[in-house]
């Protein structure tokens, strides 16, 4: 059975149950891929927070019940954050380092916006 788990809890050898795409719709890891440590690094670089994996080795997958798959996934806030950041940047990421920096910054801005929304409510 497939389960949604946090990227931190993904272990090498787990199998991707649902293809992972970035926000531009480009494929990062197709369904059926056996995840390695290198994959994990790339996923983190892209700011992927949750992954749907096949139940593996018949064992339990940690923390799956506590994870809210919608957390950090609100598309509206994500788009808002991205628009906001892009308006100030006069450039687009040209290499993996810049992509990593961009995604980390985006994560911070998403958090800020979400926090502000929560405070306002």
């Amino acid at each position, binding site marked *: 059975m497939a389960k949604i788990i946090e990227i931190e809890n993904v272990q090498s050898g787990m199998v991707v149950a649902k293809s992972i795409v970035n926000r531009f719709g480009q494929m990062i890891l197709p369904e059926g891929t056996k995840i390695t440590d290198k994959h994990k690094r790339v996923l983190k*670089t892209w700011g992927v927070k949750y992954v749907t994996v096949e139940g593996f080795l018949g064992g339990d997958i940690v923390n799956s019940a506590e994870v809210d798959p919608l957390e950090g996934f609100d598309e509206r806030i994500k788009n808002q954050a991205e628009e906001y950041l892009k308006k100030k940047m006069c450039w687009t990421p040209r290499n993996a380092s810049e992509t990593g920096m961009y995604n*980390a910054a985006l994560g911070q801005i998403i958090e800020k916006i979400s926090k502000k929304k929560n405070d306002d409510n």
Partner: protein
Amino acid sequence: MTIIERINNGISRLPTLPTVFSAISDALADPRVTNDEIAKIISGDQASAFKVLKVANSAFYGFRSRIDTISQAIMILGFNEIRNIVLALSIINLFSKEKKLLNFRPVDFWAHSIGVGIITRAIGKETGLTNLESYFISGILHDIGKLFFYIYASNEYAEVLRLVEEQNLSLSKAELQVFGVDHCMVGSAVAEKWRLSPNIVHAIKYHQLGPITGKYEKLVSTVHIADVFAKMIELGHSGDDVIYEPNLKAWDILNLPDDVFYKLSKIIMADYEKTVSLLLSE
């Protein structure tokens, strides 16, 4: 007086750094100076001593056990880092943080500077360097030229800030239009006047262009990237809303793992909040 004459005049009239800083610097010029002698100089200025201990005990340096005395702090952090803490505290307290000029608020300016200092040190650590002495202070002082303009040419600086606002220019571009020099050049002149070490002067001068001179490349690249990241995650406010493009050479020099910012973000945010309240409190 022309603007350039006024800038030169301003630099010659800059306030001197507090005696405790110059006393430490002079003492450190003597290779046989002892830990106790330096501790005595700092302890002689109670306000400084108190703040130095607070900074040394902050999460920023991450020591588990408490540092209770200045001599202990020197033993653990080293002479030069202690001198840098005193320097940072002195310069931040040298100018008033009260007034604001249009969009330029000294408190936000210092918050951005402290943010860059923290990121500079965090990235420096990631590159595997063990000697990070000038990293924090270079980050803190990288934009000091802006503060100089704001204090010594505030009428013209209001014009600069208006240009930034109306035409969405970077501060540097607007400064060049109005003054013919930008905060990087003026900042390095200020640092030279204060006789700060050449690597710090260099980092201030090239923080925006990145490593183009072949000198102090690691430090310059680190401050350069840290400045961009601080603007992206909005630590404080540096006076403009333009995030400039990093110099690609900086990435080659630093050779950082791709997920380094993801990894450091949380620590940076936590250190930032604590350090800002520590350094900016009266």
